[in-house]
């Protein structure tokens, strides 16, 4: 059993050896997390495991048994809002180009801000370093994070 976006769901036997990403996309129909590399190298599949960013493509589903998984689809739900403030910031800064990596980018950014509500520039860069974007939206990602977490004087 796993707590997935606030609901308790079973992991069926056929998925016992699957990756968390396959379980989410193919069994749960939660397709925001993307396959990009299959080896934890690009970050497109980033989700939260007990609030921390993990790569779903190299996380065995067995490792999330009894734990709490949040995907992009579940991000806004707890607040009852239609969008999480980080998602809104992504729109306001016109971040997405092709958009394929952005679910992972947003999940990494939200995990960072949960841990450090006022991150330094270096902390932003460090937290986002593992999320690749071929369209090159990195500068806008920094600005969107700053929009939510302004530099403290």
């Amino acid at each position, binding site marked *: 059993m796993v707590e997935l976006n606030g609901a308790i769901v079973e992991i069926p036997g056929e998925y016992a050896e699957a990756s968390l990403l396959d379980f989410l996309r193919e069994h749960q129909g939660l397709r*925001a997390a993307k396959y990009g590399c299959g080896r934890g190298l690009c970050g497109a599949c980033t989700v939260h495991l007990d609030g921390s960013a993990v790569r779903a493509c190299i996380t065995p589903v067995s490792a999330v048994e009894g734990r709490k998984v949040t995907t992009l689809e579940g991000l806004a739900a707890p607040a009852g809002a239609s969008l999480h403030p980080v998602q809104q910031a992504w729109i306001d800064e*016109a971040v997405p180009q092709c958009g394929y990596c952005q679910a992972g980018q947003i999940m990494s950014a939200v995990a960072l801000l949960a841990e450090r509500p006022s991150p330094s520039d270096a902390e932003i860069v460090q937290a986002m370093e593992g999320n690749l974007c071929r369209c090159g939206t990195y500068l806008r990602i920094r600005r969107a994070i700053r929009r939510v977490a302004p530099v403290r004087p």
Partner: protein
Amino acid sequence: MSERSLSRGARRRTWSRREFLIRGGVAGLGLTVFASCSRWLPVLPTRALPEPDEALLWVALTPLGRVRFRCPRAEMGQGIATGLAQVIAEELAVSRERIDVEFPPTDAIAPALMTVGSMSMQVFFAPVAHAAAALRETLRARAAARSGVAPAELVHREDGFDLPGGARVTFAELVTERDAVIEAAPGGESARPYALDGARRRSAIGANWAPLGAEAIVAGRETYSRDVVVPGMLYGAVARPPRPDARLLASDEAAARAVPGVTAVVVARDRRLAAVVAESPLVLPRALQALAARFDGGERISQQELDALLDVDAALARDDFEHEPASTGDVATGAREAVARLDARYDSPMTAHAALEPRAAVAEVTPSGVTVWAATQDPWLMQGLVARELGRARDEVEVRPHRIGGAFGGRALCQAALEAAWLSQSVGRPVRVQWSREDEFRHNGVGPQFSHRIRAGLGRDGRVASFDHAMISSPIIFTSAAIPGSLQPIVDLLPDDGTARGAIPPYALANHRLRYSDVRIPIVTGAWRGLGAAPNAFAVESAMDELAGLAHADPLAFRLAHVPADRPRLRAVLERVAELSRWGTARDPGVGRGVACAIYKDVTYVAVVAEVEVDPAARSFRVRRVFCAQDCGLVVSPELVRAQIEGNVVWGCGMALHEAVRAEDGAPAQTNFDAYPLLRQSETPEVEIALLEPAGVPPSGAGEAALVPTPAAIANAIHDATGQRLRRLPLRLAG
């Protein structure tokens, strides 16, 4: 016969097809030779533009006064749906919220030029404006008829028309149960678009709209082709030949069939493919392993052999080049008169598209028709290819396009769609085929490698007296992925304009010659962001910097001195980037500045200054800041143009720092992001941008231009900081 095809013939054409083409500046695409032998080339990329009357069908009024835009372009992050919707908003005076953008299936609109080459805004700005203006005038006529007022007395304003005396007819009121969808009336082509009226104040054009689709993306609701689920769908995985001409030797079909969950094993020796189909994607890796497809044959070319094949110096020794697209004056005379000489070689490697989305497609083949869900830069090409693959008529196949998770030239062809169609036909159920990252690196072709030699001389006056440029690379437009082997010998006689793109410097150069060969190699080479433009500008703009050094001149002033009088827009971007970067002011120790510029496809002017910090002890460098001045004419969506420039700068930094594919055993050796690193967050420079918009200049392309000068600007900055001239991409400092 459908209503649409009935009305088509009746419509008067007020702008001819030729005018349409010339307006878009695509008249010289260089594929005319192809058209003449199209009987032997069954399926070609889509080059045609719809007839004006067909273009009118892109825009329609729907219930509640909403506007339906059937976007004739593929959306891959360049924001073209947003930009063209802004043009529509300008013509109809409607807000962003009222426009519903659709990416129509292949039979819903006429085929439109494939989405490549930064041409969407340049070529489609006017036709979309015409289509929306035509609808506006149709609505005006209807509003006039309804209210009994002469059309000329109606004043068009937000969502409708004002009548004399203060009453109003809204667009919503014009939609009735009988007329639920209103298209432009025949003859609408003659309506005059606001967008083309330079004197008119614009409101939607030039505004910063949030990109359409951004909400769906950030909420995880966007459906990429990999996310498509069709009832009854199976999953397929394909074993492909490791080299294009390798043969399928053997496979263990029985073992693959024995894997629990496998529904079918499909082997087609003539296609040189073997595949497994299963109820669940979880089964596929094991099934493919059990299938153990073995291939042999094909040219196992090594990187060393490739380097020899594409060695410009060997070709110079033989004095053997296929094409000479530029020859002015006499380079030998110029060289004799030179007081200082440059003789330098520049190299750039093969490159991968590495879009974050590995391709995928779903196909459903039934006796009555074929449906394909795919993300492609050319849905009509895929329609034709799937029809040929299955032996069906083109109009039996419908391709439903999806947002592309990055294309960069690598998605005109969506091979996964052909594979899914083949498998669906074999098993009689819908099939999804999704490539792995390794498939994407191995089987999608690469941008070719280039070797250049530039021999140039400086005259007594400090100007370039001769510029003799020789280069070797491989076909891009005439890629082996599209040109059948039987036609390659004929096609190879033609110059590949994609390979040579941007190789002619934008300067006034006395005594200039460009010679090149586009040598077909056993690895598939093809279109990659900007085609040859960035590798060629790396050579040309590095050489200009070296010549400035020989002349003891400031590199920016040296360039300005060579800008021809008829290219004031090039002068303007150079001068603007000088201001922006505070060129000529003191810089910190270890920091260098470099400049480079380009005119991309004769229409977009761009100059870049890179500021690089070098750590000599670590033999490393960091691009700190990049300044870019760009003139791409009228800017419809300023933030989205800036986003394209930022993305191009990131791409150019990646070329300078990392990107290289090496050949091994006839195939790309790099198969994932550990071996082919993309630029990362920590390596991304700050970017400062100035957009120049000379009055009266229509929009040109922004999707590739700023990439072109960026690697050269970085190499020039490293030289400024260290005195080291790096002539090979990616750039590596010596100890």
